[in-house]
């Protein structure tokens, strides 16, 4: 590892001698303490994140290596992005590892389905760190304020799930302890298995909108289940669970417009078939394929200098079957309020996801103090309420955290 770091440092230093290269990034300490009896550390992390870029008018590049060092002295070196740009009169090409973000939703992934997610610490990290860069070719063609975008992803990258022993590992329930078969967890790397995405977007005084389509892989695997039935008891005696990714065809769009003091946003995606787990393990390997709709309506405004934003999100399974584990309609509300003080050097913020089906929530109040230009001190709390559902399952993971960040 040390050798790699020294090599990278030498390359960066060497490059900086030869050309006008822009360096910026941050150094950050992130400490999280669980609010349990032992006050365990949920995270102790030091990060060095570097953005190296150059723009020479017709061409540009960016590389974003990062180093994370954890309490156990584990050091991980990663490359969030590394891409090159080619600028033509009406077209841009971006080639390499890149994060691609679509849609108008905040904190919710609806048409924003190109970059997979790193869920190692659930939805708690900054979104720039949750989204994974993927090797892809992105082409944008511009016509006035309209953009046609095409993305080709040669290799499929799945969601990164938390380790088996992680407190963020989602709870999965099976009637008996399963045997896992990971033989199908990877999607073979070949041209046929690549993903394609296309989008048309427009920006105008009246409205901004996007239409998109995708032929992709589901970032989250479906759990194919093969049970063995005990002939004497007629009960399930063992299970083989095989995680497997399936193809998805998705279409959708989003909009954003201003009405008086309000910004109204909407986003929706329609899935032509997506696999859902069922309680009936003896039929169809415990899976059913159904059309699926995921959409959101949001509103942003400002009241007494407090910025307010709220979103209603619904996930609907069409032609529903009662054996499906997920609810037919899953409703979530998000809420954000923030206010700045002391000439914008102090900001208080409250963000919450509220699950209406399971009456659970993730509530995230935080205070951000800009100690000096580019030096932020953040204190916050993550409170999980409820005892089941997306957020309630982490009820024991309430935590306080601090982030001290120096940007350069």
């Amino acid at each position, binding site marked *: 590892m040390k050798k790699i770091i020294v090599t990278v440092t030498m390359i960066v230093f060497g490059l900086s001698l030869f050309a006008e290269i822009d360096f*910026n990034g*941050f150094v950050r300490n992130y400490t999280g303490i669980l609010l349990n009896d032992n006050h365990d550390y949920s995270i102790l992390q030091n990060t060095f994140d570097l953005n190296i870029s150059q*723009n020479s008018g017709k061409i540009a590049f960016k590389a974003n290596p990062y180093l994370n060092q954890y309490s156990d002295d584990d050091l991980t070196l990663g490359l969030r992005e590394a891409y090159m740009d080619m*600028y033509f009169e009406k077209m*841009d090409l971006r080639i390499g590892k890149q*994060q*691609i*973000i679509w849609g*108008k939703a905040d904190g919710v992934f609806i048409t924003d389905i190109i970059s997979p997610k790193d869920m190692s610490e659930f939805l708690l990290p*900054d*979104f*720039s760190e949750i989204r994974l860069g993927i090797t892809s070719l992105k082409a*944008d063609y*511009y016509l*006035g*304020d309209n*953009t046609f975008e095409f993305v080709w992803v040669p290799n499929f990258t799945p969601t990164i799930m938390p380790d088996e022993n992680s407190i963020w590992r989602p709870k999965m329930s099976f009637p008996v302890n399963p045997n896992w078969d990971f033989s199908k967890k990877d999607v073979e790397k070949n041209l046929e298995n690549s993903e394609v995405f296309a989008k048309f*977007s427009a*920006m105008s*005084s009246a409205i*901004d909108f996007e239409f998109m389509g995708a032929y992709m892989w589901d970032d989250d695997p479906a759990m194919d289940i093969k049970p063995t039935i005990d002939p004497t008891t007629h009960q399930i005696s063992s299970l083989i669970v095989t995680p497997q990714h399936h193809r998805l065809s998705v279409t959708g769009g989003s909009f*954003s*417009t*201003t009405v*008086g*003091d*309000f*910004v109204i946003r909407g986003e929706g995606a329609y899935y032509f078939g997506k696999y859902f787990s069922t309680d009936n393990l003896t039929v169809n390997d415990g899976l059913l394929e159904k059309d699926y709709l995921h959409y959101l309506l949001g509103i*942003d*405004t*400002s009241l007494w*200098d407090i910025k307010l934003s709220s979103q209603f999100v619904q996930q609907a399974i069409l032609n529903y079957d009662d054996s499906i584990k997920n609810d037919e309609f899953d409703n979530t509300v998000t809420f954000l309020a923030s206010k*700045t003080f002391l*000439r*914008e*050097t102090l900001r208080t913020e409250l963000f919450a996801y509220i699950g209406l089906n399971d009456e659970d929530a993730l509530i995230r109040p935080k205070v951000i103090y800009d100690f*000096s*230009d*580019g030096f*932020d001190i953040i204190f916050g709390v993550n409170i999980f309420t409820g005892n089941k559902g997306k957020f309630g399952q982490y009820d024991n993971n309430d935590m306080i955290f601090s982030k001290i*960040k120096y*940007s*350069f």
Partner: protein
Amino acid sequence: MKKSIFMIMMAIFALSLVGQEKITGLKVIQNVYNRKSPKDQTGELIMTLINKRGEERVRKIKQFTKDFGKVEKKIMFFISPADVHNTSFMNWSYDKDDKDDDQWIYLPALKKIKRISSDSKSDYFMGSDFTYDDLGDRKPKQDNHKILREEKFHNENCYVIESIPKDEDYMYSKTITWVIKNKWIGLKKEFYDEDGDLLKTLNIKKYQKIKEYWLILNSEMHNVQKNHTTTMELKNVKVDTSIPSSKFTERMMKRGL
């Protein structure tokens, strides 16, 4: 013949009355608003925020402005401080009195352009003493204007204009502006709060004729109630360089400088 001479004299007298039409407060402010401005402009904006202890924070922005006739478009790229590096902001401002500005912000960490409501014109820009409205062109018809007096200020002959907003809920109860005669530049402006007390004073430190346009290059806003100050300096100004209209698009907001 006598009749003709009399008629000509009458006509000349009438014309001279038109020429000496009494200038009003509204006319002075309209002259400031309509002062000849470049078709497009590029410059670096350096804002220094000084608190009551004299500590300074500096914000650097590169900005491009272009007049498209019925709409003026502006795009700003934030250079420093480091945590806002590569953030960009775009504003489309319309001639129509009843049409609000359209505004978007690009946040590089989120890699996303967000449409924002332009209604919060009373918000302070990047923690400075300038509100968004102080930085924009407030339309003359939004206030009732009155000439208080004429006086010499910094060796310039000025009209002193009191402007009272028609909207009673506006953040200022009134403003008083010292406008240089013939150049139509506001040299000083006082802003009064809702209670009628002096809140802020804007002083123009440097203005210059670039090509045929009078441009303000250095100004200072002092909040007298909180005793903090913001200086705003415009450097490397270029005018009428035919900035392409494609500069004011989503593409450029994302690409940055």
